[in-house]
């Protein structure tokens, strides 16, 4: 039961998740982060630190989000590992304010 980054991350990419991942299982592209399900050890440490609540346990995803299990698996294989925190994408804070409103 790995954890999954969902579309809520798109456009924010805060990467708080990256700094607390004990196994460096986060990958990254221009839009968001992805969790490599092969490496994730289910610690759940990334869930509470995500400023927009984008990370969920795979088995707790609502039906319309389950596609993100496969997207994480596929994109993690195609993208590089990110080992440290990066600045969020431009406009992330404004986006967060809308999401959390």
């Amino acid at each position, binding site marked *: 039961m790995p954890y999954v980054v969902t579309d809520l991350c798109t456009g924010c990419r805060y990467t708080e998740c990256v700094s607390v991942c*004990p196994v460096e299982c986060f990958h990254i592209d221009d839009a968001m982060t992805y969790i490599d399900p092969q490496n994730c*050890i289910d*610690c759940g440490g990334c869930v509470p630190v995500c400023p927009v609540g984008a990370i969920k346990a795979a088995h707790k995803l609502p039906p319309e989000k389950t596609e993100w299990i496969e997207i994480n698996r596929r994109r993690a294989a195609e993208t590089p590992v990110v080992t440290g925190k990066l600045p969020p994408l431009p406009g992330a804070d404004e986006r967060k304010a809308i999401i959390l409103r």
Partner: protein
Amino acid sequence: MIPGTSSPRRAAGRYRVAIIGGGPSGFYAAEALLRSERSIDVDVFERLPVPYGLVRFGVAPDHPKLKQVTRVFDRIAEMPGFRFFGAVDIGKDVSMTALRSCYHAVVLATGAPVSRLMDVPGEGIPGSHRAGDFVAWYNGHPDFRDRQFDFNTERAVIIGNGNVALDVARILAKTVDELRHTDIAAHAFDALAESRIRHVYLVGRRGPEQTRFAVKELQEFAELADCDPVVDLSHYPELSSGPGPDSEAGAALALLQEFSMRPIAKRRRCVFLFGLAPLGIEGDGRVQRMLFGPLQERPRAAARTSLSLDCGLVFSSIGRRAAPISGIPYDETRGIHANIGGRLATSGSVLPGLYVCGWGKRGPQGTIGTNRACSVETVTNVLTDLPQLDEPPRHPDRLFAATSIRRYVDYPGWGRIDAEEVARGGAKGKPREKLVTVEELFAAADGGVAC
């Protein structure tokens, strides 16, 4: 292994950093140092013969996936410049002064091993334990293998609302079949197999909206084979409006509310109680009951005016502190080694060449990975300081020639211990059977089998 037989001499012109403590924060500090642009040799000194700290002796045996983090530590141990010295107790086998004379910088990664006390009458009478001791015992910690826990009682009380309290409750609530195929120490499995415990009470001082439970770990109480979670929130009507979804405590409350509406069908129960301050433990020669009262400072937050719980076992799990070290500044209030961003500091001025990371730096909180960010912060400061730090007058080889280090376990030695434990566990359908004495561990490290 015998000191001095195979350790290559350190290259000249490189920085040398000693890390005290081979747990997660120590490994992550080593990784950050060895990944840096500077040429650094890192020696990790661990008091026990084995690495991994609380991943081996803290993480519950029924959380095997979490223990896979050790693969990362093993990868770090393979990085050029890394050495591991197991069973070397800094402060005992080697003085801090002697250690410091051999390294540019010393990083404390010694955690928070001291359990906080409840400070109530009766604490310490037979049957009253610190949760951390129980955890170390069921995880096969050599210093705790001879502890005795009497499970010939139907009720156990756990004080505390954090994840250690949840671990203790869950291990007490699980059936033998739920524990059989874990890496729980054999002595603990045998003792728990005889347990008569039917009711486990988890008691917190604060309200149900202020727990420090990880939701993921709380959720496990919904899935136990023979135990139901029991939550009564009728004393907290003001919570019914529902919490915000954005905090862990809020999500934990939502789950507790869910638990409060579940039917109770199984034989064992884990009862969650809130807003109760421990007043004392009573019993004639051993624990018979525990007394609670309302919180003095927040009487309105109290669930009840007072409560007496009959029980035969009490575990306190109300926090941990770093162990004070002579000559190292200590923050009494926070129970940590006083520091600024990981630089040890007293009254605002830093002590050159001395650092801290992990629980000894920030207190006992966070997940395993929290230590990564924590150690990276400390190491960033080490890297900034290194060019200004004094060249150490001595070489680390001196430690082994001139001190009481007669033997230690290196990383290949740990590999042999690991292989032996995995082989012993395989025969029983366990991921490993931990060796629980220092002598057995040394024997396995040397390639022999203890008898």
